[in-house]
């Protein structure tokens, strides 16, 4: 599995300014199997636009996005997405939300329920299987959002600021859970965030975007599993975070 972004470009027409605005220009990035790549950058640097193009939600203006050598066009089950808004189906139970991708693949009900329950157990939500999303807290909803994408076994998991709308304590717990799940299952992840410590904590690699280009690409060789209690005192974590932060502020 390789995701290869080549000279990606995105230009919008802004009717109010009566001008074309370029949000992504000549962006190239390669992500290999099993990598966890955090993408950081200031607001308006084009990180979400890039993710939306990888997901196939919006068309690109130039360049190419290749997944296993095949050019991406439109959304597909090979690219799972975790949304900041959770985007759970309010009219489906938690179990049916998690099993939705499998249902689309034609997996029989008993089998997809079994798999969905397995994933729910993975995030400690086995009890919530028959509840509706609005009956869960934000943190629980996003756990469902993450495993709904994972249960479909995509080639790459695209996460768009997934923990930005939960409270600070829950966020840290979710981050720790995500590193644990990543260690167990080794999915390939592209994680968009503007939170520098979060980016470093989770990733094997941090990419800094600026004005639609890759400004820096920093390897994070911190040992796994990662736990906040330990990492806050870790000198390497501090050094890497400082470097990323410096780049983001330059951007």
């Amino acid at each position, binding site marked *: 599995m390789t995701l290869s972004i080549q000279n990606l470009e995105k230009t919008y027409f802004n009717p109010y300014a009566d001008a074309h605005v370029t949000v992504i220009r000549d962006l190239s990035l390669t992500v290999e199997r099993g990598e966890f790549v955090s993408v950081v950058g200031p607001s308006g640097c084009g990180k979400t636009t890039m993710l939306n193009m990888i*997901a*196939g*939600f919006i068309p690109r203006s130039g360049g190419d996005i290749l997944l296993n050598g095949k050019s991406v066009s*439109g*959304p*597909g*089950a090979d*690219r*799972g*997405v975790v*949304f900041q*808004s959770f*985007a*759970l*189906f*309010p*009219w*489906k139970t938690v179990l049916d939300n998690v099993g*939705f*991708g499998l249902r*689309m*693949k034609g997996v029989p009900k008993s089998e997809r329920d079994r798999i969905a329950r397995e994933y729910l157990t993975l995030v400690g939500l086995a009890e919530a299987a028959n509840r*509706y*999303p*609005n*009956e869960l807290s934000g943190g629980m909803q996003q756990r469902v959002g993450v495993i*709904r*994408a994972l249960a*479909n076994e995509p080639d790459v998991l695209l996460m768009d600021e997934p923990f930005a709308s939960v409270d600070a304590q829950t966020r840290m717990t979710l981050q720790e859970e995500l590193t644990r799940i990543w260690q167990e299952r080794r999915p390939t992840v592209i994680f968009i965030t503007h939170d520098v410590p979060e980016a470093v904590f989770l990733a094997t690699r941090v990419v800094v975007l600026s004005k639609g280009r890759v400004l820096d690409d920093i390897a994070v060789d911190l040992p796994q599993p990662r736990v906040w209690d330990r990492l806050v005192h870790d000198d390497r974590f501090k050094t890497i975070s400082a470097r990323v932060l410096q780049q983001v502020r330059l951007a």
Partner: protein
Amino acid sequence: MNVALHVWSTYVRLTERWPVIATLVPFLPILALWEILAWAGVFPPAFFPSPGDVVKSFVTLTYKGILPDYLQDSLVRLALGAAIGIVLGIPFGLLIATNKIAHRVFWPILLFFQAIGDIAWLPILLIWFGFGLGTMTFVIVYTVLFPIVLNTVLGVETIPRDLPRAARSLGSSSLSVLWHVILPGALPNILTGLRNGLGYGWRALIAVEIIVGTSGIGFLMFDARRAGSTTEIILGMIILGTLWYIVDAWILAPLEKATGERWGIVTS
């Protein structure tokens, strides 16, 4: 003060146990005023019957079987028209809401025909279909259709953009997105449309029955006018209000509320 509070709390407790009391109590002053006016003989009894007269007429007409028959006729007509309206309206609304070209083509036409009120169709319909079920069904379908179509479009527009996106990236085809995301997402609004539509349809039906009528509650009232029976006219009016209250408060409103509430969707 204390007594008033005590009475009020007893009333609240009673209505908790029997909600029908909360429905009936507000009508008591109206009923009392009516009885007093009739009893005082402010108007001649032939113009202004008393509540007792209306109840008597209700019993007689029910006993003769006229009232049940007419009621059934009216309800069947409404149900038939509503069913056709739903079957046409929901897919049409979904098409307009999800397809830009369809939206451009049909939206102006929709607004144009919405402006021609249901009753305004009657003259031409009577020539086309005559005094029969065809005319009545057309008018009801016409009345029910617009609220359903417009609310379906509104419902689809309120679905957050991320939901169809999530479904697509989980492998849904366009058709599955429609079935699993768009339709349930718009359902609370569709039910609101249905509720409004049936309300308009009920009124239109009575109007049509008055003009076209061979049977039905509207016909009953107009026929009573010919015979000069104010009692039966008022009975018809009370039946209209009561029946609609039952349909709306006991069936449509809970249905609309239930879908939205269980899913945590708030309808406007």
